[in-house]
């Protein structure tokens, strides 16, 4: 069916709008008050989202070209790699974590494994040298001090 993706987007938008209205009504009023209060504007925005979503559901665009499953999995794995990177960054330290993450990405972007490892290490050490040693930016410090 054409326009399925857009319909899903529209449905997600309506759900988001509903969630916003529901959460907005739960906002605790404070003793400081202004005529409009903290709820009105978010509710107006939720209504705009709902109207736009409804329009998207009824008049969807052509279906975009989704990548085949393999590529979707590729993107999913890259997300996992980035999440792991974010979690391990404060534990393993910048240089080690970055070397792993950028090796992975370089490899998945089509570099042979050994060259990817070299490139990953070079990228990591290069960024460390430029941003930490030269520019003095504070990067995550691991157990080995870098």
């Amino acid at each position, binding site marked *: 069916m054409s326009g399925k*993706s*857009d319909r899903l*987007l529209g449905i997600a938008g309506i759900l988001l709008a509903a969630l*916003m209205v529901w*959460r*907005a009504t739960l*906002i*605790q*009023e*404070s003793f*400081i*008050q202004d*005529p*409009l209060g*903290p709820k009105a*504007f*978010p509710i107006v*925005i*939720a209504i705009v*989202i709902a109207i*736009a979503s409804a*329009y*998207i559901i009824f*008049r969807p*665009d052509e279906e*975009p*070209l*989704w*990548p085949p499953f393999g*590529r979707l999995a*590729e*993107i999913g794995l*890259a*997300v996992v790699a*980035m*999440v792991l*990177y*974010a*979690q391990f*960054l*404060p534990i393993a330290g*910048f240089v080690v974590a*970055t070397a792993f*993450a*950028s090796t992975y*990405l*370089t490899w*998945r*972007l*089509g*570099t042979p494994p050994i060259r990817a490892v070299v*490139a990953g290490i070079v*990228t990591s050490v290069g*960024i460390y040298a430029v*941003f930490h040693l030269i520019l*003095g*930016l*504070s*990067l*995550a410090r691991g157990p080995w001090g870098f």
Partner: protein
Amino acid sequence: MDSLSHLADGFSVALTFQNLGLALLGCFLGTIIGALPGLGPSNGVAILIPLVFSLGLPATPALILLTSVYYGAMYGGRISSILLNIPGDEPALMTTLDGYPMARKGQAGEALALSGLASFFGAFFATWGLVFLAPQLVKVALLFGTAEYFALFVLAFATLGGLTSRNQAKSAFAAALGLAIAMVGVDGQTGVPRFTFGEVHLYDGIDFLVAIVGLFALSEVFIFLEHRGDDQAGGKVKLGRIIPPMEMINKVWGTMSRSTVLGFIAGVLPGAGASLGSFIAYSIEKKLSDKNGTFGTGDPRGVAAPEAGNNAAAGGALVPMLALGVPGSGTTAVLLAMLLALNITPGPLLFQNNPDVVWGLIAALFIANFMLLALNIPMVSIFVRILTIPTNYLMPAVAMISFVGIYGISGSTFDLMVMIAFGVLGWILRKLDVPLVPIILGVLLGDQMEKNLRRTMTISDGDLWALVASPLSIGLWTLAVVGFILPILVGRYFRPKIADRPEMEGADPD
């Protein structure tokens, strides 16, 4: 000539050894960023903001560095358009039409030099336009009250999809989504948390830098993963001679002048960025001077027109951004983010209270322009060599630098996770052809928009008619409605045909 004396003060700010060095560095980096496919003025500047912010540079030098990058990226976009037939960024799209055929004819060097000259011409005169027009707009803006500002924000959002918008519902959806994101956090007026779901990290709200870097830079990495190996840029092109013959330059003066004026106007108007500037400049030039049907086959005028047009538009777009604090295009939205990150709120008060920042910035634009001309004509072969860095080494570095920048702001893993989430969101929305710029603008302006609305209501004691009580605000509302509806009626006549190609999906916005 108040402006000129201010400008002279601006030059005294910008002409220090450190600031000149930063401008040079910015121009160099910017040209590289613009030239590399996949990195454009928006995401290039987006990645650099958090870095500059964490380096703790004072406001003026930081501004000089980043605006030089912005102008540099506008210059750089043409390099890959001409040599590889791949626009380095969206505004350079039109340059491929005649630039690449010129390169095929062995005139790559000439095309590059000519487009460099046209870029300089457009940007130089647009910066003069900025000098004279921005103070005038400031005078108008000083009449604005809270109701007028609210209407102005509505106008900005309504026209952001632009004349070229394909689907206004999606533009509206994106803007509202951005505003919704801006609502997360403690309400500034009454101090109650909103939409935080009890998560302490969300009390401060979502940092707009995290959103921008995620949406623009990380989503680009996902796009590359998706299309890996699909279209490798093939074939080296010979540069040929770098200095075009005088005869060729003489032929394009008229073209450059017309395109500069058109581009500047397109840039100043709300809802039209550099892409529209280059598109209009090219189409009008084609109508006017294409008598022998040479456009599209490597006509030098077809290279000069879009480049003068897009650089003039880039300068023009700074007028509403600086004078009103309301950007009209993607890159100026990112520049607004940069100002906000440095704790500078653009608008009429900035011109009154911090003239050194504004005029130092404008002076820096002039300086950057001359530097870029110098960098781009004789040294273009260096940038051409950088183009040969394969993306499989480049994109991981871009991703890692994005992480470095965001981690540098807060040192928090939570922010990194939010950034990844925005990256995925950005990728999905780009696939679905939902524009990202309105989201960014919503995140940036949401707070101020709500504040102005609520102040209006406080002043009028809850009377909604106060929003349309002055002729000025009625005018702004009218413009907003017209600006939203007009593209639905005339949009398809103004949209460049090639922008509808599937491979341009969610290309880097101007």
